[in-house]
C-alpha cells in the first residue's frame, strides 16, 4: 500500500461538515414531519368508504413502496419540471423522502389503528365521551405508543436517505459539503470516512434520544 493518508485537512474542515450535519438533520426532521401528516391522511384515505380516496391512497402507498427512494427523488427533481414546477435540490430531496416516508408510515398507522380494540372506544363512549373525545383521549395516546418506534426508525432511515441529495446536486447537507471538499482535494476516502462516522453518530444519537424520550413518555 503506497497511499499516504492525510487527515489534517479533514479535521480542519470539521466545522463545515458539522454545519452540514445540521442541514441533514433538518431535512430528515422535515421529511419525517411531512411524512407523518401525509401518512395519517393516506391511512385514513385507504380505509375510507370513498372509492376514489381509497384508490388514490392505495396507489400512492404501493408506488412509494415498490419503487426506489432515489427514483422518487429523481421524479421530484427532474419529473415535476414537466409541470413547470422546478424544485430546488433541497426541496426535491425533502419531498422525495417525505413521499417515501408517507408510503411506509401509512401502513404503520393503519396497522396501529387496527391493533387498538374497538372496545376501548366503546368503553369511552359509554362514559359519555363524544366520538372525537374518545379518539383524542383514548385511541390517539395508545396509537402514539404503537407508532412511536416505527416513526423514530423511519426518521433514522430518513437521515441515511438524505445522502442521496448528492445525486441531485445538494451541497449544503453533510454528504454535499463532504463532496464539495472532495472535489477540491480528491482525498475521497478521508473525507467520506469522517462523513460516515458523523452519519453513524447522528443515527446512534437519534436512537438514544428516542429511547430516553420513550422512557419518559410511556410509563405503562
Amino acid at each position, binding site marked *: *500500500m*503506497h*497511499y499516504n493518508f492525510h487527515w489534517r485537512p479533514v479535521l480542519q474542515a470539521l466545522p463545515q461538515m458539522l454545519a452540514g450535519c445540521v442541514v441533514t438533520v433538518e431535512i430528515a426532521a422535515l421529511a419525517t414531519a411531512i411524512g407523518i401528516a401525509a401518512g395519517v391522511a393516506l391511512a385514513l384515505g385507504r380505509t375510507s368508504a370513498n372509492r376514489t380516496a381509497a384508490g388514490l391512497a392505495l396507489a400512492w402507498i*404501493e*408506488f412509494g*413502496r*415498490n*419503487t*426506489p*427512494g*432515489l*427514483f422518487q427523488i*429523481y*421524479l421530484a427533481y*427532474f*419529473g415535476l*419540471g*414537466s*409541470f413547470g414546477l422546478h424544485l430546488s435540490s433541497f426541496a426535491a430531496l425533502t419531498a422525495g423522502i417525505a413521499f417515501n416516508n408517507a408510503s411506509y408510515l401509512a401502513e404503520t398507522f393503519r396497522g396501529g389503528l387496527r391493533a387498538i380494540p374497538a372496545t376501548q372506544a366503546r368503553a369511552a363512549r359509554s362514559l359519555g365521551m363524544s366520538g372525537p373525545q374518545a379518539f383524542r383521549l383514548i385511541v390517539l395516546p395508545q396509537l402514539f405508543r404503537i407508532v412511536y418506534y416505527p416513526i423514530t426508525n423511519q426518521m*433514522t432511515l430518513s437521515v*441515511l*436517505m*438524505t*445522502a*442521496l441529495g*448528492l*445525486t441531485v446536486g445538494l451541497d449544503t447537507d453533510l*454528504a454535499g459539503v463532504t463532496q464539495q471538499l472532495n472535489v477540491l482535494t480528491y482525498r*475521497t*476516502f478521508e473525507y*467520506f*470516512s469522517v*462523513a*460516515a462516522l458523523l*452519519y*453513524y453518530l447522528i*443515527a*446512534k444519537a437519534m436512537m438514544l434520544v428516542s429511547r430516553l424520550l420513550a422512557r419518559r413518555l410511556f410509563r405503562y
Partner: protein
Amino acid sequence: MFDATVSLQDVLFMLHGAGITLLLTFWAVLGGTVLGLGFGLLRATAPGWPSLALGAVLDVFRSVPLLIQIILVNAFAPILGLDLSAFTIGCIVLATYGAAYCTEIVRASVLAVPLPTRRAARSLGMTWWDDLTAIVLPMALRVGLPGWIGLALGLMKDSALVLWIGIIELLRSSQIVITRTQQPLLVLGIAGAIYFVISFPIARAGAWFERRWHDQ
C-alpha cells in the same frame, strides 16, 4: 439522429439497464444471504460478547448511508491496490449491506423457534446438526421468509445507488435517455413502471406468505 422523442431503442436501452439492476440484485441477494445465514446462526448460537461484537460491527452497515459506503469502498479499493470494476464494487457493497440486515432476520427467526421444541428434538437423540437442519431451519424459514423477501426487494431498489460510481443500471439509463430526449416525466414513468412490475408481485407474494403463516 437527434430525435427528441422516446424511441423503441431508448426503451430497449432502459430494459438493458433493468437487466443490470436485476444482475446486481442477484449477486447482492446471493452474497447477502450466504453471509447473513452464517453470521445469523453465529449471532443466534454464539454466547455473550462475540455475538454482541459481531452485531455491533454489522450495525455500522445499517447506520451509515449506503451511498457513502459505495463511495468509500470505491475509493478504498485502489488504495489497497485492487483493480475492481465498478460492477464488482457495487455487488460487494450491496452484498455486505444485505448481509447486515439478513443476519438480524436469521437471528430473530432462529430465536423464534421455541426452546422446548429444540429440547424435544435433542431428547429424541438428534444431533446438533440434525436438530438444526430438520427442526430449527425449517421452522425458522417460515418466520424469516417474508422479511427476507422484503430485504431482497430492498436491495433491488437500493441497487439504483450504484449509478453514482458509473454503473448504467435502470435509473442511470433513464437519466441518459432524459438528457437526450428532454422528456423526464415520460421516461421516469417508464422506469417507475419497470421497477413496479418487478417489485409489486414479489411484495404481494411476501405479504401472502406472511398472512398465511401468521394465521397458523
